[in-house]
């Protein structure tokens, strides 16, 4: 047995108008300072005002939000006593909103205690709305929360099925202003979700279709959205694809590229989507040496290959590298601008933390410690995996 959880999803241009119909008294908007400057927070507030809802804004969320930031937001929530929490932004504000909501409801918990094995008993004080302003993270529909432990420079994977949002508003107009680099990074994040959601050992019949659909939409529309940000057709498909991929991998699991990308991101501050996409082709080649079928199958479904086994899997890795380069992203760690000396100096930590990342357990081929180390080195040099 397994579960499929999802918020109610309102999607398409004009979806933000749904806020006008909301019932409630006070909404706390959890976001970042850039979205305040861009006027997106004001846009959301004006819809909430139309619904007769008083608003307050916590705009202190940084990229890779820390536990300390979440605690500051919880203090704001305790003073304001909202009955809605609104996570507005990319993955960081939405993850911070989820954590803040849980700790507002359950002040007896430590952030590290938010796990899938306990009953949280949420929705006593407030409910959660998520509104993505990027097309990638899928955090609007997943229950995962990633916070950073700044002391250990380590990302903490938290979450519980109960902390999935009640309502996700997926309006592509909110992502229309993304610059090309952010469009590429976040779009590749969504693609990594789709590929890993389809190929990890926790994939299910219920999630497979979402992942395939998302991957197809991303291959077709990401280059267009990067090249021409005002192409609203491509933007709309990308926004929907990110949500589909979020539902897909969020109800299955991510895998080894995420384990490796998490640590690269936390140690070298590489944006999440860029980091996981760098590793994805290498992890496919590694796993495909022993378990190529799912990758080859996906390559066939995407019309990228018509051969079975490892050659089919390698065709998927190759077309992913092509797409990564087409949208101007690095296909190796070296291309991401990290010096070999810095990388090798932190290699032990990279390997150790990736080895102990929960998402590594869903790889169809579990890497031994030394294999993982080698994989990090191959990914640095951009060398296709042959072991």
């Amino acid at each position: 047995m397994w579960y499929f959880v999802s918020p109610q999803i309102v999607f398409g241009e004009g979806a933000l108008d749904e806020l006008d119909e909301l019932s409630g008294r006070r909404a706390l908007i959890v976001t970042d300072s850039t979205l305040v400057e861009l006027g997106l927070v004001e846009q959301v507030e004006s819809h909430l005002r139309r619904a007769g809802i008083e608003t307050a804004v916590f705009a202190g969320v940084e990229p890779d939000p820390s536990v300390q930031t979440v605690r500051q937001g919880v203090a704001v929530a305790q003073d304001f006593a909202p009955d809605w929490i609104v996570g507005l932004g990319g993955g960081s504000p939405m993850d911070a909103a989820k954590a803040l909501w849980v700790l507002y409801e359950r002040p007896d918990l430590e952030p590290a205690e938010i796990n899938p094995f306990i009953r949280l008993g949420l929705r006593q004080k407030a409910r959660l709305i998520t509104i993505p302003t990027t097309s990638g993270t899928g955090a609007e529909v997943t229950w995962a929360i990633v916070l950073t432990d700044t002391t250990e420079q380590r990302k903490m994977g938290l979450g519980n099925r109960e902390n999935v949002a009640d309502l996700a508003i997926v309006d592509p107009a909110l992502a229309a202003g993304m610059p090309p680099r952010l469009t590429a990074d976040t779009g590749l994040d969504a693609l990594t979700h789709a590929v890993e959601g389809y190929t990890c050992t926790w994939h299910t019949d219920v999630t497979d279709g979402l992942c395939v659909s998302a991957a197809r939409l991303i291959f077709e529309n990401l280059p267009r959205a990067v090249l021409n940000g005002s192409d609203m057709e491509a933007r709309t498909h990308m926004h929907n694809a990110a949500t589909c991929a979020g539902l897909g991998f969020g109800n299955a699991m991510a895998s080894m590229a995420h384990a490796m990308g998490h640590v690269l991101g936390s140690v070298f501050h590489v944006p999440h989507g860029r980091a996981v996409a760098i590793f994805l082709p290498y992890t496919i080649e590694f796993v495909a040496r022993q378990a190529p079928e799912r990758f080859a199958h996906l390559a066939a479904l995407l019309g990228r290959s018509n051969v079975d086994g490892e050659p089919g899997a390698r065709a998927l890795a190759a077309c992913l590298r092509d797409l990564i380069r087409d949208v101007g992203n690095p296909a190796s760690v070296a291309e991401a601008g990290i010096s070999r000396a810095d990388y090798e100096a932190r290699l032990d930590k990279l390997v150790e933390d990736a080895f102990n990342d929960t998402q590594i357990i869903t790889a169809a081929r579990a890497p031994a410690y030394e294999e993982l180390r080698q994989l990090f080195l191959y990914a640095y040099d951009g060398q296709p995996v042959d072991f």
Partner: protein
Amino acid sequence: MAFKFPSEEWIQELSKQLNASASYERSARDWEGDFIFVVEPDEAYPHTNYLFLGLYHGKSTGAAMLSSEDERPAEFVISAPYSNWRKVIEGQLEPIQGMMTRKLKLKGNMMKVMRYPAAAKEIVSCCARIPTEFSG
């Protein structure tokens, strides 16, 4: 030779397999915490059994079949009906998924366990390597 599950011989064989595993030694090198696995009765197996597995710094410090959960202290206790244990050993039920769906119930600090996913996976791999004859 096949080892009957659950039995003293089976849990001792798991202890041996772990001590032969370089992968387990590496992934659990600073792990501290013993386990008791409680095999609960179900339609396939009528008894309750307690299997103790000592684990410390990448090695198994010993294993035994106990007469009760209280016979030896352990930081973690995982309980499940016999048929669910069989699924874990046969690779049909991934233990983290098993805990998320309450097919396996853990007493102890789950977050500590979750920081050692590779070790948890290797324990299951070692279980799968034991030629097992199921009692039920």
